[in-house]
């Protein structure tokens, strides 16, 4: 699981990175709001933890911008401010939860687990990127033409469409789609190949770039 942490207090950031890593999370730490927006645009995370008071852009501005780009990754605000207004502002900006400093590490970990568990429920079942629409409940991939995808194809396409222009390694995709199944990692390339053929067949203006066993990324042609 990947977490984007934006916290400008270096000591607190260092402590959070240590504890989150120790609990099995892969943490990307940035120290201002602008860097948070950049990271969120180029990589896919399972959760975002933002401070509110930060240089360049504050946490609320950063999250507003990230949400405006269609990114629904669960987000939690860590804030020194306990005022009601900030909590409301943060939640309205698209945060899913908040914690007021000082907080107990165990509570942060529990809230993160809870957020990631529920993250699928936040998603609408229709995703649009470029001229392409994926309806995840109907498993329909539609542009000029339409096809109905198989289960794993839908999951894989959903991950790519929720994160356009972001790279995923073969291992990451395998973990996300085939986690509990008796398959080996070669299946990723087969399904990437299916989706490539189908993107062409529906005349989508998108393509999946990347080579066998390496990283893949969905982008506009």
């Amino acid at each position, binding site marked *: 699981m990947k977490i984007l942490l934006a916290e400008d207090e270096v000591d607190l950031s260092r402590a959070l990175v240590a504890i989150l890593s120790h609990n099995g999370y892969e943490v990307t730490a940035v120290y201002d709001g602008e860097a948070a927006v950049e990271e969120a645009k180029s990589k896919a995370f399972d959760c975002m933890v933002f401070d509110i008071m930060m240089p360049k852009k504050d946490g609320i501005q950063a999250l507003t911008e990230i949400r405006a780009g269609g990114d629904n990754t669960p987000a939690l605000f860590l804030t020194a401010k306990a005022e009601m207004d900030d909590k409301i502002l943060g939640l309205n900006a698209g945060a899913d939860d908040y914690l007021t400093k000082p907080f107990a590490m165990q509570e942060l970990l529990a809230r993160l687990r809870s957020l990631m568990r529920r993250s699928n429920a936040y998603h609408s079942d229709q995703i649009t990127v470029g001229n392409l629409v994926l309806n995840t409940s109907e498993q329909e991939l539609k542009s000029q033409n339409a096809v109905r995808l198989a289960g794993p194809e839908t999951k894989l396409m959903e991950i790519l469409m929720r994160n356009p222009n972001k790279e995923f390694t073969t291992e990451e995709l395998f973990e996300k789609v085939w986690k509990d199944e008796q398959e080996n990692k070669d299946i990723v390339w087969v399904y990437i*190949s299916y989706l490539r053929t189908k993107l062409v067949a529906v005349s989508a203006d998108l393509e999946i770039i990347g080579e066998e066993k390496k990283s893949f990324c969905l982008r506009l042609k």
Partner: protein
Amino acid sequence: MEESIYGTYKESMEKIMQTLVEELEKKNNLIFQETGEKGYEHITARLKSDQSMRKKLLSKKLPIDTYHALRSLRDSIGLRIICSFRDDVYNMVDELKQMPEVEVIEEKDYIKKAKENGYRSYHMILEMTVPYEDVDGNLPGKYYVEIQLRTIAMDTWAELEHKIRYKKDVANREVIASELKRCADELASCDLSMQTIRDLIR
């Protein structure tokens, strides 16, 4: 017995159809020798029946005579070429275009852009130059041939849909239509997966 709508041209039309099928069979053998795989699975050919031709002329408000059957309508001679894989369809389209004495008058790619109901097929109207007199009195003459190309999966769908479509008194017409469309899109998806698998193991 009532005279054929095709008049004295019926015999030539049968010969044209037969010759074209034979030419394609030769081509298929050549492709098999070269690649070890057939260019297509099978062909069905037919002259549009008198009854359907008269009905179609009537519905288009055209005079019911031989001239209009052969000139205003262009599907009196029809061939359906059924292929295993999607790419085979496009290869056969290219083969047809390269045939001598064939001019492509019209092409419609309902594979790239399926019809609203999910129907997929590649349609072509050919104008063939043949050593028989045509309805305008030309020799060599010119006859139209309609070709439909599609995969086995597309053909399966079209055949089954055809059987269901004309059933009367269907209660949930809209549900049935959208379910048939869904079946077409699922079959198309399988076709694409099979094509991809073939490409991956080649």
